[in-house]
């Protein structure tokens, strides 16, 4: 059967491990002791009593919502501007897509370098323009680390939003704009009454997908700050990593993963139930 290889691979590398991880949350299991003993809800009750968990959950919310909002703003900005015929559009479109395709390690290293408090070029420019009086710490500051991180995700993933928004904008029937114009609508009215309702389902889809992915984001944060300074950027995935690979307590880490997964599941139920994404695409045509 042709589906065999794929099925075997998926079962062995994805389904079984996921099933294993789902049950692991209910067992005591550490790296030092290969035995698994039944724990019941002990891992969960331990977790829920950790102030670090709640702090990480809060940071995850801030990070997810902040970066999704920033990415959509970025996407709308470039989507709307690049929708019209303009000189050098092809080149600019490639440039906007580029950050999304770059390896995360490159983005982490480049931003670490240009936002470096001592030798960073951004601080140099800010100082020369007298926008700041002394070098901004960016990733090194307790209050600046999270906003800086959100800025980087906007830069990296905003292009995903721009791409989807651009594709949707190009499929809006031009007659809708003609009709709006003949009824006396200006640019702003056209945007508000024609563009935005047509974009609604696209924007919701972007918010949903990017929300899930940002909530699960591990690599970028780890590369840039490793959750620091003083846990200022320690979101849930970083917290789980620490339990699993610094304390080597796999049972507790899996329990924390289950909590993350439960949150995502709740969000997707709300998304599919109340925003019925497929229906709206039909209406938009």
């Amino acid at each position, binding site marked *: 059967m*042709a*589906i065999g290889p*794929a*099925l075997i*691979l*998926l079962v062995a*590398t*994805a*389904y079984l*491990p*996921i099933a*294993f*991880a789902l049950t*692991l949350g209910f067992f005591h299991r550490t790296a030092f002791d290969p035995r698994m003993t039944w724990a019941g809800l002990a891992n969960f009750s331990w977790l829920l009593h950790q102030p670090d968990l709640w702090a990480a959950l809060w940071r995850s919310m801030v990070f997810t919502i902040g970066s999704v909002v920033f990415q959509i703003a970025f996407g709308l900005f*470039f989507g709307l*501007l*690049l929708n019209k015929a*303009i000189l050098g559009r*092809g080149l*600019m*479109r*490639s*440039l*906007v*897509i*580029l*950050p999304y*395709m*770059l*390896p*995360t*390690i*490159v*983005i*982490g*290293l*480049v*931003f*670490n*370098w*240009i936002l470096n408090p001592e*030798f960073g*070029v951004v601080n*140099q420019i800010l100082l*020369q323009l007298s926008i700041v009086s002394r070098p901004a710490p960016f990733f090194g500051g307790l209050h600046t680390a999270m906003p800086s991180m959100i800025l980087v995700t906007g830069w990296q993933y905003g292009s995903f939003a721009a*791409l989807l928004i651009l594709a949707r904008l190009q499929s809006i029937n031009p007659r809708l704009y003609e009709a709006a114009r003949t009824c006396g609508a200006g640019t702003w009215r056209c945007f508000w009454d024609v563009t935005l309702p047509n974009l609604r389902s696209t924007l919701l889809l972007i918010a949903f997908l990017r929300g*899930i992915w940002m*909530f*699960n984001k591990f*690599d970028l944060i*780890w*590369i840039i700050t490793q959750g620091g300074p003083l846990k200022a950027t320690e979101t849930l*995935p970083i917290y789980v*990593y620490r339990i*699993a*690979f610094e304390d080597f307590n796999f049972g507790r880490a*899996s329990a924390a993963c289950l909590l*993350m*997964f439960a949150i*995502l599941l709740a969000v997707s139920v709300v998304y599919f139930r109340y925003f019925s994404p497929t229906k709206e695409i039909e209406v938009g045509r």
Partner: protein
Amino acid sequence: MTYDFAKRWMRMVTLLVGMTFVAFPLYWMFMTALTPRSELFKPPYQLLRTSYSLQNIEELFSATQFLTFMTNSLIVAFGAVVINVIAATLAGYALSRFNFRFKNLFVASTLWTYMFPPILLVIPLYIIFSAIGFRNTYTGLILAHVSISLPLNIWIMWQYFQIVPVSLEEAAWTSGASRLRALWEVCLPSALPGIISTAIFAFALSWNDFSFAFILQTDTSMYTLPVGLATFVEQSAIHWGLIMASSLLVSIPTFGLVIFLQRYLMQGFGLGR
């Protein structure tokens, strides 16, 4: 007329400001990579440079393990591409041509795996691979990368085979071709764009992956490029010229890909206009 003209200029200027924001970090990576070490710790820097040096890139190959990391990255990415293309093509073909039990469940589950936090997948993989000795091996990391890229690739190939009409194959069957021969000579050429996308996606995911390689490969000689590069920052004397030079080299496949996408795949997105 003048109003329209002013509006167009406004748009152009806004766009250029935005583009500067996008391009500047990459421009600075490029500049730093070509700046000799002695000048890197002497700010203020000139934003425009006229003299370049390849000193950093030479040092990268002579004084670091960059080549080892690159070989590892290429082997793993190549393995992931081969497995993805074969498995996804066969599965996509089967899904579009045959009906079987649990088909819908299978298709839905391929997309579900995207909702699981990757960290949820890496913990059991770490335990299992430790037990069977797959950690710090190419096989282990290839399998881990396949687990994240295969689900979407099956989906892509399924979509592509739905576009290829069955009648084409039937014509081949009536002229005496076997099912396999018809798949090979009729179906595959029509599904080639899908196969190319599958290969690109598998390569990009494997080449870019940090998390899986970082957790599963703990032996320096088995590091892939992203993990190896991360260690450059941890060294006592951080040499940013070297780091930016390696970042630049790691980005080369991406630059190639974007140029390719611009010419080829954009039409499929309806963006070609």
